[in-house]
């Protein structure tokens, strides 16, 4: 009997682990305003993604997949060489210092900018869906007027995006990337041949989900299907975005004052 109770206690404990973030939020009822409570239950148009959305870093996953080593398709020799050169600050290869391109204020690019803890605002017009990112003060446009991708695209950081609704899922199809950005925080590369699919769904008034699918035969030998990301709507006074440009002088100052001392190196 005693052993059974012990076993049941352990099982109950382990079973509760996936619910931990929700439990932690549930422990903060005092911070919940009446307005926020009413918003949760109010209906939302599933075909309206408008709003300021934030990907919270305490929901793991700053890459296509939350766990960088999981469901990672095999790399081609071309991609492996690029991956070996990468010195990221996060993930399986994490190290202090490093050569993350964003440390030099290179644009973060799509899809990586979607994994930052800074919000982005979705704005819809009849012909386009815009995303305005706090990070880098960047923006992208997704054409929804039925057009196809232009031929002979010049490679760009954000690529060329077209979108359409499939039921309640807004499907964004993007090609025309350059190969200068990392796919994620972990140093995974992508090529100019990347074909990215983003599947957005407004789960409820305050929640939007996203699944990413990467097809890049020059870099990966099979399709990389991501897990489901979750974004939360910022409302009231929280619906605020600052002017967050990447400023080389500020990055250098931060590197000299914090990044290098943190890894025991002298400032430049």
């Amino acid at each position: 009997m005693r052993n059974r109770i012990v076993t049941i206690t352990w099982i109950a404990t382990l079973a509760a682990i996936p619910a931990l973030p929700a439990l932690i939020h549930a422990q903060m009822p005092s911070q919940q305003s009446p307005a926020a409570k009413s918003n949760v239950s109010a209906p939302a148009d599933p075909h309206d993604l408008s709003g300021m959305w934030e990907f919270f870093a305490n929901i793991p996953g700053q890459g296509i997949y939350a766990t960088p080593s999981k469901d990672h398709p095999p790399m081609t020799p071309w991609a492996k060489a690029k991956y070996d050169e990468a010195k990221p600050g996060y993930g399986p290869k994490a190290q202090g210092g490093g050569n993350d391109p964003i440390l030099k204020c290179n644009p973060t690019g799509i899809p990586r900018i979607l994994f930052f803890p800074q919000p982005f605002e979705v704005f819809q017009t009849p012909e386009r869906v815009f995303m305005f990112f706090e990070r880098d003060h960047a923006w992208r446009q997704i054409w929804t007027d039925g057009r196809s991708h232009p031929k002979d695209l010049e490679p760009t950081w954000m690529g060329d995006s077209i979108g359409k609704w499939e039921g309640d899922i807004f499907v964004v199809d993007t090609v025309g990337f350059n190969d200068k950005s990392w796919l994620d925080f972990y140093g995974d590369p992508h090529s100019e041949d990347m074909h990215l699919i983003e599947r957005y769904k407004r789960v409820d008034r305050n929640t939007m989900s996203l699944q990413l699918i990467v097809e890049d035969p020059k870099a990966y030998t099979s399709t990389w299907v991501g897990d489901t990301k979750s974004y939360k709507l910022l409302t009231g006074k929280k619906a605020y975005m600052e002017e967050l440009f990447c400023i080389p002088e500020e990055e250098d100052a931060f590197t000299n004052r914090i990044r290098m001392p943190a890894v025991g190196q002298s400032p430049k």
Partner: protein
Amino acid sequence: MKKYLLNFLIAGAAFLMIGIPIWAHHGNASYDNDNPITIKGAVTEFAWTNPHAQIYLDVKDDKGGVVHWSVETYSPGKLVRAGWAKDSVKAGDQVSITLIPAKSGAPVGFLHKLVLPDGKVLGLQELEN
């Protein structure tokens, strides 16, 4: 019954410890995510800049010396959404900061929580719900 209680406590402790990695994504590879510490001292500078705001403070050690700590936190925009302002912290303020320290042993850390002289707590929680 005693053994049951002990096992229950161990299970409870394990449950709480599993919560720690939730903080892990606030720092990067330079920081010891699993061992947060709390320091107390006098602020010398509050740098309200990107990519991360910074707080510098002098902390007295056991031997009467002073250690100058450098503490990074989120970008100003995220801090505003979490209830901070540009003038939340001022030079001279005696503050208590819970942070994850640099693995290198250098007096550098990533802020989790700051307690002001009047007891007000500033954290990184942005969501109200």
